[in-house]
């Protein structure tokens, strides 16, 4: 744990967790229940920060992916991976929180609301980027594929949102600090800041892990060449001992 990146990451995670906890404490015990939804509305303090943070990390991933594609620097590749992974985890959390909230409020676990559907599509699109990384062995090719797929998935975000919005709509208007009382704005702000700081810490730690992995991979000795494929039609290309046997 000597790396400055890891130390800063760890500090961010701890600070972020403290801020998130503080925000939730105010949100659960100090702030009044929501006018229409009552106590169920308190999920706002975790749901909205998660949504904001997820989108911010996908944006970070997009910028890092552009850098990775045009500079080829390994650090950008690691940062793209870190940001995509944190963003994807947050998006999955967002879907779970949304379902928990939608059940008592809309009386259904799932609706075809633009924001909900866009989140599901995003979780799939960015989740596949992480899956694809695992399937590519060559570092340069993996870096290119990760960057390209991240850029394309990010460009899709507004298009998916608007297409689904036209298609069906039920979600309430997006909550911002301006649309609510300051008693509720404070815990939301603190929780959002906490989520962002914690996410940044996790992203830095994940970036560090990826950097170590990539460095190990670059230092690893070359694998021995694989045996020449057996060619039955061409005796010179195959194993001579086998030819004598036949």
């Amino acid at each position: 744990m000597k790396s400055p990146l890891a130390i800063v990451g760890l500090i961010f995670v701890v600070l972020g967790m403290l801020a998130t906890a503080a925000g939730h404490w105010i949100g659960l015990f100090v702030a009044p229940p929501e006018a229409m939804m009552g106590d169920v509305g308190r999920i706002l303090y975790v749901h909205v920060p998660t949504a904001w943070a997820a989108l911010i990390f996908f944006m970070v991933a997009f910028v890092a992916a552009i850098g990775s594609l045009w500079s080829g620097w390994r650090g950008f590749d690691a940062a793209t991976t870190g940001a995509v992974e944190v963003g994807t985890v947050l998006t999955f959390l967002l879907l779970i929180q949304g379902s928990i909230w939608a059940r008592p409020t809309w009386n259904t676990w799932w609706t075809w609301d633009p924001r909900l559907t866009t989140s599901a599509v995003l979780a799939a699109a960015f989740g596949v980027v992480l899956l694809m990384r695992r399937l590519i062995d060559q570092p340069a090719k993996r870096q290119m594929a990760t960057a390209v797929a991240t850029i394309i998935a990010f460009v899709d975000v507004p298009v998916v949102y608007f297409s689904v919005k036209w298609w069906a709509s039920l979600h309430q208007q997006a909550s911002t600090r301006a649309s609510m009382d300051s008693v509720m704005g404070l815990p939301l702000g603190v929780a959002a800041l906490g989520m962002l700081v914690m996410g940044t810490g996790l992203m830095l730690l994940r970036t560090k892990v990826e950097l170590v992995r990539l460095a190990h991979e670059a230092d690893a000795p070359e694998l021995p060449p694989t045996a020449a494929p057996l060619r039955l039609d061409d005796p010179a290309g195959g194993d001579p001992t086998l030819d004598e046997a036949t």
Partner: protein
Amino acid sequence: MTRVFAMTLTILRKDLLVEWRARAQAVALLGFAAVVLLLFSFAVGPDSTMLAKHAGGYLWLALLLASTLLLGRSLQTEVETDALEALLLAPVPPAALFYGKALANAGLLVMVALVAVPVDLAITGAGIVENPVLLALIVVLGAAGIAAPGTFYAALTARIDGRQLLLPLLLFPLVVPALLASVKATSLVMTGDPMEQLPGWIALLVCFDAIYWSLCGLLFEKVVDG
């Protein structure tokens, strides 16, 4: 610029010729689309009003599923014979390679639709379409919307072991807007459009096509270099 255009046409001609010489595969693809349409009808049951209502959705799902088979082998010949390097050294500009292949795939997808649309209309009982020109426009725009990112991802996954799985996984979430717009527009043409929503959906398809035909063409160089 004219050179890129000429090369694009050459690649398009080459790909269509390869498809023509192996036309049994193209015919199998048509059969696949028809069978998928039949299976959707079995899944829903013989309720003719329900089938007719969702005819547009079945058509596009059949086309999307057929497209993964089509796109999967779009670069296979080049990769297996190391002809991709030869093409790039020729030199064919990467953009021309992309646009030639994407146009060929879009064309083949439209060909699949030529068979799938009548089959879809017949077995769902949606009946005769009053405005076939408009439907043809939607089919072309929708096929283009699948073909551009599809060709791009086919190239990206061409040398990866799990490509048969990875290509649809990458493609399906991405083409959600094109799929929604195509399905809606097709349904509106089939069942009538009292609210005049059709221009909006066609505009969305055009926007999707414009974004991905330009973005994928721009990034394709990185994909074939890598």
